């Protein structure tokens, strides 16, 4: 389904070049839900943007269903972290959801039908006529997910989709993604910096190193049965996996911070 | 060769046939000077020549030149100083079509506030004098008067520009020492703030001084000689009619905001009926003398004559 080989991206700016991701190899089978975790600034978003064809990789290539990506492929949808910025405030919720279908030359009435169905699926029946800013954060993010679902992509990319919603809503949305995956058999690549989340939703957890990001581990998640917020998180395997992933993410050494300050200067020594 | 074709008016057909253009736009201003033009329009003198004249008000006269050039106006009222210097600077290919207005006693006067120590142009040395347009006929009239009293005034240092309606405020507020005003402002100033007239410019070298006329461009004159001749004929009749003071007094309140009561007591200048090169040359010579022209200007080249 998705094949990434030797992907490297270097940003060239006024202040010199910065390699964000380096020689990433990764393959995702159809129907899989792969989570990518890594320290802040390690290049997760850069990786996603390269897959989506929004930026051109410096080296390496990305194949989706065997076709090399050079411009945005049309069997792909992206859910961005910042729902308040990726939804268009001048359109109603239903218009937002149906907008991508214009590319498929779907008729107006059909567009509307598909949009309302997608909204219903994410639990937003009846709000199609409202504007995004009239909804709570969680509902906005669901709208963004509905937009992606309505488009029926073969591959859905999600960049920290629950980073800015509260914990409660976040758990609901995690379950929603699992349900959507089951319902449509989509392939999903989900980026997060929450290790718990990655273990909870993922079939596999791919850990990236600090900048420039490379793959340091690819952990299969073998948790029994359908996931359930409370029971699953109490499962010993879950606790083990999250500890392992946690050690992998932070273990190598402290992730970089702009001013080069050590991260635990004060808290560290005082912890006996 | 210099007189207009007005003499043989009656010999020409009075119908519109034969005119290159029967509808012309004429620039005008809400001032006493254009009373004959207004009479001509009202009394249908243009119509008798087969002409339809549309009047277009000008703000200050400065924009007459570009309006003539762009064709927005076919003929425009304007003062000779402006016309001649535009012509001398080659900005406009000028043809004067008809004479309009000349000064007469009390039409152009120098006024000072009621309690001013200035009593004659001799006291104007180093003073600030308001005129409506600098480097124009106003400053020239004042400088001629001052010269006669042995006082030299500088075009840039002694004059400031204010619109006539503001002169009351600036005189009253002592923001200027004196002002050169035309009618009705001279009459109004003495009525409202008791301003004193210290000099009437209509004497000596500037007596009966040609002030303004009607002009067009050389291009228009070449293409529309018959139309302009018709205009001249109508204007001659109008200017002659304006010799009757009652007619002028009667029409002034119709196109200006001068009240009828005031109009009756105004000093009214002369409305010459012929276009006389010798008379107009006086203006050009004074301009040369007072530095408003860099070179001599031969006015007779600038006059439109239908026979040419």
């Amino acid at each position, binding site marked *: 389904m998705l094949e990434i080989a030797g992907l490297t991206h270097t940003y060239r700016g006024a202040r010199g070049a910065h390699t964000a991701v380096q020689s990433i190899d990764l393959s995702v089978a159809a129907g899989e839900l792969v989570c990518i975790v890594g320290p802040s600034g390690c290049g997760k978003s850069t990786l996603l943007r390269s897959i989506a064809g929004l930026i051109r990789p410096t080296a390496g290539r990305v194949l989706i269903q065997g076709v090399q990506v050079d411009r945005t492929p049309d069997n792909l949808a992206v859910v961005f972290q910042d729902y308040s910025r990726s939804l268009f405030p001048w359109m109603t919720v239903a218009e937002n959801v149906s907008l991508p279908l214009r590319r498929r030359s779907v008729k107006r009435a059909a567009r509307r039908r598909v949009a309302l169905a997608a909204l219903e699926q994410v639990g937003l029946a009846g709000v199609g006529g409202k504007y995004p800013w009239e909804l709570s954060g969680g509902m906005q993010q669901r709208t963004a997910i509905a937009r992606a679902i309505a488009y029926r992509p073969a591959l859905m990319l999600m960049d920290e989709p629950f980073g800015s919603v509260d914990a409660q809503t976040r758990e609901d949305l995690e379950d929603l993604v699992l349900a959507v995956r089951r319902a449509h058999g989509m392939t999903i690549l989900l980026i997060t910096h929450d290790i718990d989340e990655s273990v909870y939703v993922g079939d596999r957890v791919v850990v990236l190193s600090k900048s420039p990001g490379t793959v340091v581990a690819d952990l299969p998640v073998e948790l029994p049965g359908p996931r359930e917020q409370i029971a699953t998180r109490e499962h010993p395997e879950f606790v083990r996996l999250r500890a392992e992933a946690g050690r992998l993410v932070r273990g190598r050494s402290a992730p970089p911070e702009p001013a080069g300050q050590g991260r635990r200067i004060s808290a560290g020594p005082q912890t006996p | 060769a210099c007189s207009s074709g007005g003499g043989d008016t009656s010999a020409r057909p009075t119908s519109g046939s034969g005119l290159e253009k029967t509808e012309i736009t004429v620039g005008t201003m809400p001032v006493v000077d254009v009373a004959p033009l207004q009479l001509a329009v009202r009394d249908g003198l243009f119509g008798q020549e087969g002409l339809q004249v549309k009047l277009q008000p000008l703000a200050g006269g400065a924009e007459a030149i570009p309006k003539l050039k762009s064709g927005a106006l076919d003929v425009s009222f304007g003062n000779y100083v402006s016309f001649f210097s*535009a012509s001398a600077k080659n*900005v406009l290919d000028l043809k004067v079509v008809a004479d309009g207005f000349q000064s007469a006693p009390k039409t152009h006067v120098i006024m000072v506030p009621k309690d001013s120590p200035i009593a004659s142009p001799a006291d104007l040395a180093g003073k600030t004098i308001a005129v409506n347009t*600098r*480097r124009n006929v106003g400053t020239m009239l004042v400088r001629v008067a001052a010269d006669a009293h042995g006082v030299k005034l500088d075009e*840039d240092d002694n004059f400031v520009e*204010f619109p006539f309606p503001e002169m009351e405020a*600036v005189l009253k*507020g002592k*923001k*200027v020492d004196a002002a050169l005003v035309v009618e009705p402002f001279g009459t109004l100033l003495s009525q409202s703030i008791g301003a004193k007239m210290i000099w009437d410019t209509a004497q000596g070298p500037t007596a009966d001084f040609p002030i303004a006329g009607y002009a067009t461009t050389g291009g228009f004159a070449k293409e529309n000689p018959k139309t302009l001749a018709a205009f001249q004929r109508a204007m001659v009749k109008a200017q002659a009619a304006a010799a009757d003071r009652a007619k002028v007094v009667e029409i002034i309140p119709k196109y200006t905001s001068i009240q009828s009561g005031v109009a009756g007591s105004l000093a009214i200048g002369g409305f010459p009926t012929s276009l006389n090169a010798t008379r107009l040359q006086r203006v050009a010579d004074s301009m040369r003398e007072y530095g408003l022209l860099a070179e001599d200007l031969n006015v007779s080249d600038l006059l439109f004559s239908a026979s040419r």
Partner: protein
Amino acid sequence: MACRTDGRPAVRGRVAGAVTWTAGRLWLAVLLVWLWERVTTQVGEAYFPPPSEIVATGRELWFSGPADRFFLTEEAVEDFGPSLLNLFAGWLLTGLAGVALGVALGLSRTFARYVEPIVHFGRAIPPPTLISVFLSVFALGTSMQVATIVFGVIWPVVLNTMDGVRTVDGLHLDSAEVFGVRGLRRLRMIVLPAAAPKIIAGLRISIGLALILMVLSEMFGSKHGIGAHLVDSQRDFEPAAMWAGIVFVGVLGYLLNAAFTLVERRGPHRHHLARAAT
């Protein structure tokens, strides 16, 4: 950019950078001037002299003076001196009065409800219709010109300041309150800096307007100044001199704007200001 392995290429790189920077900014202006030159020379209309003639006239008028006066002619000193003085005096007064009124309007909704309509009202009054008012309020000369400038320019400063003060982040105000920053100190240390981007944007708009009104105010009742120069050259039918005046105003505007940009980029609030365009 060029490689910077040793000192010399670095210098060359910087020079090349400066050249690219300048060229990137100027090519269009140069192209337009060149086109203008071609067209005007071809047409030969007296009112549209070619740029070369305009520049020559301007130089002769203003910049052909003695070296010890920076080549300024007497005319230039007479024209520019009072003009610039009026400009800055008017602009400064506007800044003070506009910011003060704007702050008051921004801080008190009640006050604003009563006064804001007058502000929008005043903004639409054409200054030329108020000549007589200005004339009777102020003595001839400088102060009247300054008054015209202030009247025409104060509105954007008031409106922007009001807007800036009104939209100070509630959390900034709460933080100040929690840490006991109140009263005048709050105004000085929190409200004004927070509103600074909009206030500065208002001042920036206003300096452009001030330039326009400076010229306008000198068009009557003034012996010297750029406005008087423009009127005189129009009346004297010297289009090249008139154009030189127009060009001078344009260049002055450009320089003032550039100075503003510099203040914005270099000042302590640069980040904060960069975000607040207009």
